[in-house]
């Protein structure tokens, strides 16, 4: 990426004005993915002086600043204790620690990366995104919207839940992108299931959950049926990493295993 100017913003207002002053101005989180870009930009706006790198534990929710690095996120006690640590497992499988000390939670979310292990696991929890100037949006809505982001993501609000989470990243080697991501979360008999890296971005399996969450008893048959509905309703595709057929077999196996694991 070619950059003409690097500007360290001193206020959100200043950053917002600069961002919207030209289509050639961009925000960076950690800048972890900049090298992949061959773009030429005018001004890169750095938000590091705006105190957005805190994780604050409130009574009912966890407030995560958008500039919190992935490694700080996965290491924080509040995050580790959520859902029996499945968020930490998800984030900890992203590249190496040298990368995760640069990449930010905000950057990963705004990028809407289809292979994102963070997004797939996070979307099974009640998560709200806070943008400047004032705008709030559930994470799932943000993922589904295709609009270009012209506001600044400042905080991610994760409602505390006392359930159990499961995250499986299927990949060939320890440092690879996911061939498929499967996340399951269960709290008091209510499940959430998300499939990511399909190769498309993370989707919540609503139809399958409508079925699963209405069952009085979750036995092997119900689990099998749930997995089948996932296959019928969540589009899986082929790319150079894997074929559609293979992804289907993986989705079926790991949705079943995920449900079983969070139910035990």
């Amino acid at each position: 990426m070619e950059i003409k100017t690097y500007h360290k913003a001193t206020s959100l207002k200043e950053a917002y004005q600069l961002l919207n002053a030209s289509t050639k101005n961009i925000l960076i989180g950690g800048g972890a993915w900049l090298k992949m870009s061959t773009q030429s930009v005018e001004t890169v706006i750095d938000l590091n002086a705006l105190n957005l790198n805190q994780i604050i534990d409130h009574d009912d929710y966890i407030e995560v600043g958008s500039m919190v690095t992935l490694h700080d996120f996965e290491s924080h006690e509040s995050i580790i204790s959520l859902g029996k640590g499945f968020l930490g497992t998800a984030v900890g499988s992203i590249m190496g620690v040298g990368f995760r000390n640069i990449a930010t939670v905000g950057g990963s979310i705004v990028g809407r990366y289809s292979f994102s292990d963070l997004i797939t696991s996070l979307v099974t929890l009640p998560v709200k995104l806070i943008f400047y100037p004032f705008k709030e949006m559930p994470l799932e809505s943000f993922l589904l919207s295709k609009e270009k982001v012209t506001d600044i993501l400042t905080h991610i609000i994760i409602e505390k839940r006392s359930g159990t989470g499961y995250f499986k990243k299927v990949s060939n080697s320890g440092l690879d992108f996911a061939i498929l991501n499967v996340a399951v979360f269960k709290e008091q008999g209510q499940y959430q299931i998300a499939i990511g890296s399909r190769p498309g971005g993370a989707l919540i399996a609503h139809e399958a959950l409508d079925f699963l969450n209405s069952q009085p008893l979750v036995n092997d048959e119900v689990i099998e049926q749930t997995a089948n509905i996932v296959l019928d309703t969540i589009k899986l595709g082929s790319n150079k990493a894997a074929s559609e057929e293979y992804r289907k077999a993986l989705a079926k196996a790991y949705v079943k295993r995920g449900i079983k694991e969070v139910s035990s």
Partner: protein
Amino acid sequence: MKVQFTLNGRNRIFEVSPDEYLLETLRNNHITSVRNGCDESTCGVCTVLFDSKPVLSCTMLTARVDGHHITTVEGVQNEVEHISHYFGDEGADQCGFCNVGLALTLHALKSEIKDPTDEEIKTYIVGNLCRCSGYQAQFRAIKRFLGDQK
């Protein structure tokens, strides 16, 4: 643009381009211990410590470093020499190209996680690729190094 940060304990000012990465700045200023292994933030060879945390210097814009602390092996010579004893003992230092980045990562691991499990160690160093050693001798050296720290 001018960027100011402490490098191995010394306050330094560098004249850099806005799109210049820390790796380039360091090598252009004679810190030859920091080297390039790949183009895509994937190998860990270029690892340095940013405020004591391991980061990929090829992925961090120098402008971002303004006001912070950067440590390379030149700044922690005693500690790295100590680590090198374990690697030499296990024959874990073959071509050596990944060793510098790995030593800094280990130095950070030692401070960050007390009594790490095998799984935690591997997760911490997984981003430091090695093509020579097959990782076993490295892991043996690392376990003994961390064990002796206790």
